[in-house]
């Protein structure tokens, strides 16, 4: 029952931690690294509140073992704003009131960012399918979709990469 020493990169910074046997990447981010933006909703990969980008792929961090992160590159919600400047998606979520309780918001933002990285001009239908793995019990989704579409339009006009 050894602990695994894990070195990884989180939001561009090198990090090290000892993973407990059975700990998930979400556990490591929240409990070892103090990055509590990623949330545990379901713990079974259904709700997307724990979404992070692992080596360029959007994943549920609750379905990744912490030990698997050895040598990997992880992007979380904490890396999304540039200092005090919010990412355009974050700004648009505020403008469109695309959140109520906020629990799903970090996951939705990370997932939306991953979408715009591969598809800067998604249709509403593509956006809804892409975000189908992010459950929100408050907003009814329409405001979320509007915020993502609006952010994408602004980012295309300003030629800002996601």
């Amino acid at each position, binding site marked *: *029952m*050894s602990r*695994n020493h894990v070195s990884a990169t989180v939001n561009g910074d090198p990090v090290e931690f000892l*993973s407990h*046997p*059975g*700990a*998930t990447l979400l556990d490591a981010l929240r409990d070892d690294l103090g990055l509590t933006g990623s949330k545990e909703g379901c*713990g*079974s*990969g259904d709700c*997307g509140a724990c*979404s992070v980008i*692992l080596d360029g*792929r*959007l*994943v*549920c961090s*609750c*379905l*990744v*073992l912490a*030990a*698997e992160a*050895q040598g990997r590159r992880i992007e979380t919600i904490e890396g999304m704003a540039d200092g005090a400047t919010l990412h355009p998606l974050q700004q648009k979520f505020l403008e469109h009131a695309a959140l109520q309780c906020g629990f799903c918001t970090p996951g939705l933002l990370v*997932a939306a960012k*991953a*979408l715009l990285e591969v598809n800067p001009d998604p249709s509403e239908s593509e956006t809804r*399918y*892409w*975000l*189908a*793995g*992010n459950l929100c019990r408050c907003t009814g989704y329409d405001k979320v979709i509007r915020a993502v579409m609006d952010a994408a339009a602004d980012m295309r006009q300003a030629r800002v990469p996601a």
Partner: protein
Amino acid sequence: MSHIDYMAPASAEEAATALAAHGARALGGGTDLLVQLRAGRLPPGPIVDLKRIPGAIGIRREGGGFIIGAATPGMAIGENEALAAAWPGVVEATCLIGSTQIQGRASMAGNLCNASPAADSVPAMIAARATCVIVGPSGRRTIPVEAIAVGPGRTCLEAGEFVLEIRLPPRPPRSADAYLRSIPRTEMDIAVVGVGVNLTLDESGTIAEARVAIGAVGPTVVIAKDAAAALVGSKADDAALAKLDAAARAACRPISDKRGTAEFRTSIAGVLARRVATIAYERATSRP
């Protein structure tokens, strides 16, 4: 999850040795395994991560066919244009599994070895005559995909054995596949019925070879030989599709559960078989 050891061997042989330990489990994308461990449905045991084994992630061509590493995520399978062009049914089935997040991790080999009767990629792989390379303590063997699952949640794999690769055969000319499933909503659900069809036409556009595989209508995927025979010699016309429909329904041995009654599943299997055969036929005719 409590008390599980993790190891990530760098070779297939090391992985086979580690997997021979009591209760050891192979980890690919983890989208089934970690859920089952957390729910306490599996006894705790060492976790052997396959993803550091060379070739376990990635798609390569060999002899006109494709070799797909066991832990290759669905998203990478969907992004591979050559694979999607050659095997559109296998790719569309694999990409139906779960959300974007799940697609970032879930693999065809994992879908296969989880041995759910409703697995989406499995009927498509079986229709395609896909095989898998199994590594174990006594070496390697290659078996057809349909030999893996022996019942719900149970596989033929022995202690220490795991699937390293899925292999799709070379594509003959005028040949294509398709997959459709029925779910009560548009996304994020488990198949009530899923049908994969693979067809090869002769030069006149007549179906020379057909294979029909139906998921979620029995304890394992059903290979509907009579349904395939109903298509051979036809151009997927109405009469052939009616025979296909009847033969597909006759092949079903479903249970009734919360997703659908046995009668509903049987009826839907016939409808889906017609639709999937029509799509596969149209695809095949557009490939000279």
